[in-house]
């Protein structure tokens, strides 16, 4: 596990629509291994591996963007109100720190409430950047920010903000180096704006027009106290998507991944996710339709600032995909 790379990836600033820093970082790591690189009108980074002319045209997609917040108002005392970029939950916010593109940090807290029983609403939260008045606030309305939380490795577990989906980006970066002999034309798509509606993958898939598309993203697990029933466990192997609330994986893509897992002798799980989807759902409906599937990394506490994955699942996902593309 290249912990240094994963640290850089998870800590990079990249809320949906503002992925520039993540893109620059990934670009640096894939450039030596890619035959072509380009950035498209939505900011997607596409790294191309040229096959031997006998293979298929395959997209592998991981999204660069993370959830975050955006300043909607600054009051005269210098407190900021905010809206969410992607699926941010108010309960996760309280006491969290956020960081703006210019490095400014803020603390999110909650207004005093007489009745503390209902779950707080986002409109009851504010960001405190330590300013004494409005003029003292270094960021303006419209400024995006991301949560602050370092990467920690503890045993096999990895804990950080933004593992959704920098872990997918990590896997694709490592994978590109391992598939240099692949006969297939491979398009490593580092997509933008997944968290606000699978936007980047939609347009990139249109321009690439592949024979098949595979998203690499995170999925929830059923192995925490009183979790919703879900037959995915942290550490039991990468999860091959059967279905989620946005798509049914193409049976041939699913089978390709299952066969690859057997070939590579890595454990795998089958994933049926009831809430949530991936870039694959958008790519599937591009143009005349693209057979699509996904390989998911089991992840606890998705969309909280402390997402947790297992490094063995990550290593096995890379092996599995390398076998699928050989």
């Amino acid at each position, binding site marked *: 596990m290249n912990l240094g790379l994963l640290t850089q990836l998870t800590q990079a600033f990249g809320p949906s629509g*503002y992925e520039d820093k993540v893109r*620059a970082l990934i670009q640096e790591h894939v450039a030596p291994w890619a*035959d072509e690189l380009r950035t498209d*009108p939505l900011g997607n980074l596409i790294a191309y591996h040229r096959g031997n002319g006998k293979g298929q045209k395959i997209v592998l997609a991981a999204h660069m963007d993370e959830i975050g*917040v955006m*300043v*909607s108002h600054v009051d005269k005392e210098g407190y900021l109100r905010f809206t969410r970029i992607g699926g941010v939950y108010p309960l996760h916010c309280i006491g969290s720190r956020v960081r703006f593109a210019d490095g400014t940090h803020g603390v999110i807290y909650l207004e005093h409430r007489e009745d503390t029983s209902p779950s707080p609403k986002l409109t009851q939260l504010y960001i405190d950047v330590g300013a004494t008045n409005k003029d003292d606030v270094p960021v303006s*309305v419209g400024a995006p920010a991301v949560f602050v939380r370092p990467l920690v490795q503890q045993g096999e577990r990895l804990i950080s903000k933004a593992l959704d989906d920098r872990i997918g980006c990590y896997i694709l970066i490592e994978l590109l180096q391992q598939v240099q002999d692949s006969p297939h034309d491979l398009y490593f798509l580092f997509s933008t704006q997944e968290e606000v509606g699978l936007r980047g993958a939609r347009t990139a898939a249109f321009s690439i027009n592949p024979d098949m598309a595979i998203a690499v993203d995170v999925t929830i697990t059923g192995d925490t106290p009183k979790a919703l029933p879900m037959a995915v466990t942290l550490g039991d192997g990468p999860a091959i998507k059967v279905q989620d609330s946005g798509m049914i994986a193409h049976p041939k893509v699913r089978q390709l991944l299952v066969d690859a897992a057997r070939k590579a002798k890595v454990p795998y799980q089958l994933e049926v996710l009831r809430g949530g989807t991936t870039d694959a759902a958008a790519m599937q409906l591009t143009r005349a339709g693209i057979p699509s599937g996904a390989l998911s990394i089991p992840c606890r506490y998705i969309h909280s600032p402390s997402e947790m994955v297992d490094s063995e699942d990550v290593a096995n996902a890379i092996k599995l995909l390398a076998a699928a593309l050989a």
Partner: protein
Amino acid sequence: MQLSEAVGPSGQEESIRLQLEDLWRPFTTTMRADAMGNLIAMQQGSGPEPRPAVMAAAHLDEIGLIVTQIEEGFLHIAPIGGTDRRVLLGLEVLVHGREDIPGLIGTRPPHVLSAEERQKTVPWEKLFVDVGLPAEKVNQLVHVGDPISIRQPLLTLENGRVAGKAFDNRASVVALTLALEELAQREHAWDFYAVATVQEEVGLKGAITSAYGINPQLAVALDVTFGKQEDDSKIGVFELDKGPTIGLGPNFHPQLFQRIEATAKELEIPYHLDPTPGASGTDAWGIQVAREGIPTSLLSIPVRYMHQPVETLARRDVERTGRLLATFVAGLESSYRPGWEDEVDETAARSDQ
């Protein structure tokens, strides 16, 4: 501003489109309606071929009503788009049946209501349109599925304010018309496509297909946003007569935003920033993901009482929006393309080493 009184509920934009064609013809090189009914007017640029194209879209449709059932001469209704049923009672309407028939929206008088009923908004199933005709005549003239529009003349208020039933989004259609007029007099390198889109209120439909069809290098959507009202919170609402808003967020290309903001500053046009963390709910959302993706921006005109028959705005904001758009388009150099910070240097890839 007669456009405000013209009729065009989503899916029924043909009559207003024909009016707009007459209005736009003097300023355009070519004009066509596409299969969905979008009006696409092109003003040819002066730059060398292949000339890039910029598309500006304003939706032509308005919210309205539709006949769902006819019962003893009374028409049951449902909304087209986000019609606010709290404000329908007592309104005059036009039923677009075999001919246009005036009607009104009635409900049971207060005398016969229980105290509880008086406090409640009347549900759709208890709202009806009365056209005053005998049942058999109604059956001849009106059919299920006929659209109904609100009949509300333009009202000129003091202080440059006007009110109307469909400023969402005829205000932007007017701004777009002003831009076309101005650009007809000015040199511009890019081809300019003015698009009056259909069916925005029911899911950005016209924007999706017209952007695909035109495949422009850039797009600007024009729409309305929430004007500050007396009873409003401070967030996400914008004072009238302080200029249009410029959208900020993932739906909008950051460099395009910067360029439009710089144009506003240069023209000394006041503007607001409109932070939009996700779906903008405008044509910009549909256009951005057409084909390979289109760098898109959004200008919005603040309007009070949105989706009510008394949408109110400041005329100057409409003029400012038109002028800002025209100057932005005129300023596009042939070679301009919005890019990304740290954009990939092609030579970085292995094949070029």
